[in-house]
């Protein structure tokens, strides 16, 4: 833990320095106060889809959603999304990927907070944007008895503070044995954490009551049992010590209880704990392995669940050796248990995309709407943030993703992402993607003469390039002698107010061809 604090301090110093350098730019790149996305197919999730719809964003909040006939304020920056699909950003309900180390060394560490471990420089956050994830519930990993406190972050920002949208969401626990433990020890320690907390709390209550008795003359000293009962309500936040503060918050409802169950047999102790501690309204089970076998108990308890990336469970019969496959979400749907999906952090490639995971639901018989809801509004409900995220509704945070097609199609990709109305990602300026997919040579046309079309195309290409170069040269001549990002801003200013994400040094108007700008930049 010490090393983690130390490390995050180092990260902070580094980023503080970086921020100092970038400060002037960020100020100049303030987000436009009003943005209107027009002409897109708007998937609202909460309501019907709107063809050629308009979404109006003011100060990061969605203020109006309507069809093409909706009036657009004169001062709004209009982004033409014709032919595109605008959907709410996906919500990653349970991620340890943004942390520098996903788990604590201590088995019982309810006093830590992921704040100290979030590393904004992780590729994970950048990738999240690229894959259409706009809201992430960052939480300690599963390898714990009682872990730290989680928070909800946006994948943009230079520091954990800047990223955080909601601190202190839930505490992570596990009924599955952490590494080096067996179930006996895991559960004994878990029980002991709360037994110890109760003892401490009783002592504290008694002490508080005595303090109050000293202060308040009307109160009379009571036998310890009654004193404890009365004193419990008198416990103030400042009385809580570091070790027990988060446990107290968990008890009074300020924190949710997320319990990891790696196998079906771990579900019953988790549900017993939830029942005993009265966390029913704020408990979530994070499931793995064959946990779906305990679906009946889960359904009876009414607790929501988060599934892991492995949606198909393969069971080998102990006698016959036959393998039986189960599609886990279908099991939960059948029992009417609300579930969320998570993408894999290191699994096979397609499972890293929430859109792919949702598409698998469609393949298993869910409707498209249901599948999309699971990864947006459904996940927000499970994280307890459905009042702010998860759908395109008036009053909600403007976390929007512009897709080139249906989000559940594998052939569509994320073109742009707005987070709180700020353009946080633009595929056309995705430097890493550019490096990954460098400008490909013209594809060879097989089986047809290369003479006519091939040459013609080449000619076209050359022409474009020449034009670009000419344009760039002109710009260079007229504006700046050295091609740093400044000319871009110059370009963008006359047409529209600059909309700039916090973590991007420069932006461009949406209707300009990319290559031209890139050419200018060079």
């Amino acid at each position, binding site marked *: 833990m010490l090393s983690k604090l130390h490390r995050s301090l180092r990260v902070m110093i580094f980023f503080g320095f970086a921020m100092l350098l970038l400060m002037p730019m960020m100020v100049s790149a303030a987000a436009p106060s009003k943005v209107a996305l027009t002409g897109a197919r708007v998937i609202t999730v909460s309501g019907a889809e709107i063809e050629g719809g308009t979404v109006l964003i003011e100060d990061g909040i969605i203020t109006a959603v309507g069809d093409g006939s909706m009036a657009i304020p004169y001062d709004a920056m209009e982004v033409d999304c014709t032919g595109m699909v605008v959907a709410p950003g996906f919500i990653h309900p349970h991620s340890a990927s943004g942390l520098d180390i996903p788990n604590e060394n201590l088995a019982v560490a309810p006093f830590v907070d992921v704040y100290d471990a979030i590393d904004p420089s992780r590729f994970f956050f950048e990738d999240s944007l690229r894959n259409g994830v706009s809201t992430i519930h960052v939480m300690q990993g599963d390898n714990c008895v009682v872990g730290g406190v989680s928070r909800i972050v946006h994948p943009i920002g230079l520091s954990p503070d800047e990223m955080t949208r909601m601190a202190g969401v839930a505490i992570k626990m596990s009924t599955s044995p952490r590494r080096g433990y067996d*179930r006996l020890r895991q559960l004994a320690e878990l029980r002991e954490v709360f037994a110890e907390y109760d003892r401490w709390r009783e002592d504290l209550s008694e002490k508080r009551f005595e303090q109050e008795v000293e202060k308040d003359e009307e109160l009379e000293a009571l036998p310890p049992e009654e004193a404890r009962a009365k004193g419990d309500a008198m416990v103030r936040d400042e009385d809580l010590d570091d070790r027990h503060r988060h446990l107290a918050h968990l008890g009074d409802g300020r924190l949710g209880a997320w319990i990891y169950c790696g196998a079906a*047999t771990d579900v019953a102790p988790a549900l017993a704990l939830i029942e005993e501690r009265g966390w029913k309204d704020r408990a979530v089970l994070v499931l793995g392995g064959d946990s779906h076998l305990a679906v009946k108990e889960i359904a009876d308890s009414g607790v929501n669940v988060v599934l892991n990336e492995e949606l198909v469970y393969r069971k080998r019969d102990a006698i016959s050796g036959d393998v039986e496959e189960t599609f886990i979400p279908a099991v939960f749907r059948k029992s009417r248990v609300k579930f969320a999906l998570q993408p894999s952090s290191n699994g096979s490639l397609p499972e890293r995309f929430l859109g792919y995971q949702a598409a698998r639901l469609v393949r298993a018989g869910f409707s498209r709407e249901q599948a999309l809801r699971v990864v947006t509004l459904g996940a927000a409900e499970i994280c307890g943030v459905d009042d702010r995220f998860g759908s395109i509704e008036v009053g909600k945070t403007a976390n929007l993703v512009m897709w080139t097609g249906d989000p559940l199609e594998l052939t569509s990709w994320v073109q742009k992402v707005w987070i709180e109305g700020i353009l946080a990602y633009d595929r056309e300026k995705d430097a890493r993607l550019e490096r990954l997919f460098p400008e490909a040579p013209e594809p060879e046309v097989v089986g047809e003469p290369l003479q006519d079309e091939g040459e013609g195309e080449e000619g076209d290409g050359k022409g474009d390039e020449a034009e670009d170069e000419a344009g760039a040269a002109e710009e260079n001549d007229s504006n700046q002698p050295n091609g740093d990002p400044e000319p871009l801003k110059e370009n963008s200013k006359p047409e529209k107010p600059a909309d700039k994400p916090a973590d991007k040094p420069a932006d461009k108007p949406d209707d300009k061809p990319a290559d031209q700008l890139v050419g200018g930049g060079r």
Partner: protein
Amino acid sequence: MRLYLLSLLVLMISWLPCEEVCAGDGFVLRAGSLHTGLRAIDDGVLIIEDGKIAVAGSWDELHSSIPDHLPLIHWPDAYVTPGWIAASSQIVPPHQAPETISAAYRAADGYNRYGDHRPLLETGVTTTHLSPGEHRLLSGIGAVVKLVGDPGKRILRSSADLSLSLTDAVDGPAALLKIPFPASSDVQIMPPDPQRPQSRIARLLALSEAITLSEQDSTAHGELRVAWESTLPLRIAVKTAPEILAAVSFIEGKGRSGYMIGGEEVAKVLSTVSDAGISLALRIRPPGADLGFASDLPTEGLADLPALGAGSVLALAPPTDDLAMLQWAVSQAAAHLDDPADSISLVTHHPAQLLGVEDRVGHLEPGADADIVIWSQSPWQVSAHPLEVFVEGKRAWQPKESSSTVIKADTIWISPDHRIEDGEILIENGTISAVGHSVPQPPFARIVDAPAGSFVVPGFIDCYGHLGLRGDRGAAGTGDRLYRLVGAPDEPELRVARAGVTSQLMTPQRLQRSAGAAVLVKTAGKDRSDRVSDPVSAVLLEVAGHPQDALANVNRLFDQGKKYLETWVKYQKDLAEWEAKKKAGEKIEVKEEEEEEVVEEQAPDPLTGIWEITASGGPLPEPETAKISIQLEGSNFEGRVIEPAPPIPVRITGTLEGTTLEGTIEVEADVLPAPPKIKAELTGEDGLTGTISVLQFSADIVGTRTSKEAKTFKVERRKKRDDDGRPNPPRVNLALEPIRQVLEKKIPVVVTASGFEVAPKVIEFFSNKELLLTLRLDQEMRHHAELLAEKSVSVILPIETTFSVDQKQITPAVFLTKAGINVAFQSLAADGARALPHQAMQAVRSGMAADAALEALTRGAAQALGVSDKIGTIEVGLDADLLIWSGHPFEVGSDLDRVFIHGEEVPR
């Protein structure tokens, strides 16, 4: 139409009966021996309802009061016990926490209630104790669970005992490290706390100290005070005599209830233990364990066990982690008990008492859970294995299907001159794998110990019958395949099987053009593949009429067959040559031959085009639709199924006359018994109605033309050779395929010959070709005995036992066997075939030797049908079709007790 649609017709003929015993709703279990955990009952019976035992007792007392609606499971040879209880197990491994004394660890936490523990049922154990470990002085709280069942109900007791240990394993625990919080200069990092005990002497001291401490501090030692003050019994693991004495004094000193587990040296301190009246779950020292300083051998001292059980409860615990060792312990204990059956209580009722679960498990008296193990023989026999395990009335475990059976009988009749007295037969995977006075007994073998006087004979064979045709009186030719009508056995088949007829040559009622194909079918089995081994087993011929031209038909058929055979012989030769060449690496010249493409196109006419045809009614459960492209040329048409695309091209050919359409669907070999026929009438310009039929099944069809342009197909002529020069096999001709097999001497011809001069001609014809011949003859046979004997032709006896000619009684059976001719019986009936043994009995009554009649029913019949290598006698490698009679089948008072077909017993 669709190919598979038509196979559906056939499937429907052979519907599968469901005879699975639904054990969930209650059943009656009758067993040769039953031990309820409290008492042993011979020929006992249990009534199981709602997963509980409702009634237990002996069959004699109870059989009149058994409700009829419950299915009866009868295991006449098995030994039934309650599910065993393992008083200790390693299913939950010892906990990994460092505390030497802590009541915080609960074994129930470590039990995977959703786990699939069925493989453990193989040991006969259904309930087991879970321990937090015997590696700590006080390791926590034990539990008792069932190995299978509803995950929510598997745990019988989550807190069953406080688990202590005084064995050497507890010494020298690691020191306890406490991690300070918060990590700062104010909080001292303390060195790890050393823990007791470091030596034997400190064990009891450390325990007492911990108990005293817990009285002052309720949180100490994992809230030990709560556990200590509860009434949980103490469970103390001990091994050596001093440890046993220490445990006895500890339990007595604390005034607690408790028992010991282990206690391998208990014999040394027997009197102390039995005086104290403290119970013990004994672990016998396992075989091969180091004896160390112990002077006695592992099982010495077991003789004193009865004495130990006097004042307290004595149970047996598995000697090692392997639950299967419990059975070994039982066999050891049984050797030292007056009545070996008493050993069953040591692993059922007694451990249930120790673990506090005797109200539910450990016995089979009314009210107990129906946890039942069916053992192949007395469980204290080392070779005993469970045959089935029920948990709460549900079948929880069965051995894999390849299980074997051993039949023990007084007499095994193999042939008139070969019997084995007091012999055994080993059946593995449905075939006989050993016969002799003593055969090996593989694990899980079912032991059928037939009662005294029992007489085992091979299953009877009916050489000509109609079982399975289900009243179909249609004619069938050599191209028809009767085996397609065979499915899982129905009631008529089972009736025949129960009469002892295990195989029948299934023949059509009438032959098409005096020729047909028959198939040898078992009368019982799981499915078709179990009952039929070859598609065709014999060619049937009828020869009658004028001797001059009686054989003309046969001649023509066999000429065609010969030509057909030659094409195959040539192909095989070519193939062999090609393979040899290829092996040698020679270049193979590929001649361009017979390769052409014909593209057919036609102007629109009344039929040409794409038709959408819907078939409904008849045996089809739902209407089926297909698209067919039809091309008319003159008055002949040709069509193809285009949608749904069949796996192989399906061609329809036929003629159009006026508006009447008649055609057949060309089906590849072996798919259907007969090609489906279409008969339809054109209605209006673009419609047709009619029927499609296969054998006697038909469905209505309605079609509309959706396009007037037919789809054209590339017609590729069959190439004689592949591109790499490999010869292509000739086209299969279904009708001639059986003849080819006859000519290759693989199957016999069964000829029905009538007329005085016909039989010799037939015999001449076939014996010249040296083919396998079996005859069915009429009265005229009396003149040909010498010829039959000379050519060693088998004869199938007529139905009539005797007939009178010229006022003389002739009994063919006697007459032919005397001449040394091989004879066999036929029933000519469907389920009337069950009278076949009776028919043989009649022959015996008319003078046939009993053993000769038995041979005619078994080995003789197999020989007549050319299947002596498969059935008909009791030899290694043959199908295990066996009958257990109470005496010689043709002796008065003998009954057929049991029938085995392919090693499976036919239910009574």
